């Protein structure tokens, strides 16, 4: 009679095997296999007694004290939360930081000219809405093109993605700035969308100019896996609408701001 394999014995012990009855029957009649099972059992039961350091009931309180200061004001509702009106308060705060970066940086000249007729907060919000909105729109285009690129039917032909790659590279810097701002602001939902986007953009930017169909396919899979196109599209669309409403406010159109900035 054929003895049971180690795999069968472990599987039997785990309750993770078919033909349990046949194995049980063999075990009742075969001392060798039973001994073998007992030896496995002995090792496992010794391991069961490996101690874990005690953590008393006060441990939970200690954990809370450690993490509480790091928790953003609101629990993350995933990227959907971004579409909620109250998100825009956080976005306002983010705009302040972005503006700060602009003022501190090379855009100083562009922005400090002229006094906006609209309130500072409105302008700040609009700047961000426009900036992130445009950013997401551009990112969507690049990803769409890649996602919809057809694979060559046969042959090891290389696919040239240098155009998309160059654009992804350009988008990466801006994306990093927006993501960091969102993170600093504790806006986990926005940060998470931008984080996903950043990874995919990075993948694209760091690919060689000519890629194999397999590599393209894996890029496409990554784009799909993150659901990033969908997220970017929805958030981008919301931003466009938001932009329309802020644009309808008097003295607050984007073009006017740009004109002013040129002055």
């Amino acid at each position, binding site marked *: 009679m054929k003895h049971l394999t180690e795999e069968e014995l472990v599987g039997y012990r785990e309750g993770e095997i078919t033909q349990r009855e046949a194995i049980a029957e063999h075990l009742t009649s075969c001392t060798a296999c039973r001994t073998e099972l007992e030896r496995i059992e002995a090792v496992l*039961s010794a391991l069961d007694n490996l101690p874990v350091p005690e953590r008393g009931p006060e441990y939970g309180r200690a954990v809370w004290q450690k993490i509480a200061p790091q928790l953003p004001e609101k629990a993350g509702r995933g990227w959907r939360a971004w579409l909620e009106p109250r998100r825009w308060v956080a976005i306002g705060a983010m705009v302040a930081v972005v503006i700060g970066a602009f003022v501190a940086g090379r855009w100083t000249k562009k922005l400090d000219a002229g006094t906006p007729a609209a309130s500072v907060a409105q302008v700040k919000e609009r700047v961000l809405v426009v900036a992130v909105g445009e950013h997401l729109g551009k990112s969507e285009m690049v990803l769409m093109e890649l996602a919809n690129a057809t694979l060559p039917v046969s042959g090891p032909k290389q696919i040239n993605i240098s155009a998309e790659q160059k654009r992804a590279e350009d988008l990466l810097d801006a994306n990093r700035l927006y993501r960091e701002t969102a993170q600093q602001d504790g806006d986990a939902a926005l940060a998470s969308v931008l984080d996903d986007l950043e990874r995919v953009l990075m993948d694209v930017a760091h690919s060689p100019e000519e890629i194999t169909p397999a590599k393209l396919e894996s890029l496409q899979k990554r784009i799909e896996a993150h659901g990033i196109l969908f997220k970017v599209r929805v958030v981008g669309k919301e931003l466009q609408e938001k932009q329309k409403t802020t644009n309808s406010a008097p003295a607050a159109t984007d073009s006017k701001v740009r004109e002013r900035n040129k002055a």
Partner: protein
Amino acid sequence: MTRMSESAGSTPDREALQSAARESDALAVERTLAGERDAFRVLVERHSQQLFRLAYRMTGNEHDAEEVVQEAFLRAYRNLGQFGSRANFGTWAYRIAANYAIDRMRQKRTEDARRSTPSSLAEEQDPLDLVADDRPTPDRLAGNSELRKKMEEALKELSSSERTAFVMRHWEGCAIEEIAAVLESTTSAAKNTVFRSVQKLRRALEPYVGARGALQAKAAGAAPEPRGTEL
């Protein structure tokens, strides 16, 4: 067939308690999502110990385990909306912790591998430990602590996936599907990983356990309780 575990079997009382806890977990999740940040505290206080046990067994050290627990709750908070309150918060937080612990283990291994040459592995062993090992075993727990050290070493030798699979299966009694989800593998691959972990541990520990292992298990006062072979 029995499964050994420290966790006691379910009694009706325990089940009632568990279902009450789940209910108030769901409530705490709702309240947290409604903007009451302090409601999350209930969840943290309730599940920290369980997550710590898992994290300790996966990482093998207290410092890492504590960090895993904290990070798991931070992640849970950030993603609470995705979780909603459809499922059991404990199970969900548990999975987040397991996911994070495995990432951390893998990362650490890569770092360690980069840092150390093969020969330095032997050097890492504390010479004092070796001396202690060679000493004739006094009556008390000497045999036990030697065995314990061997077990810790054997667990360290497992790959991150194997260790995760073993911890989840044997100490935590997780279903294969749950393990597969954490390992991002198929269930048959997860089964295989469990098997490989048992096989490796057996190879490493059988010389030290033998008949004594079973005796020690009993002597330690933790005679295994029969447990269903639930999946």
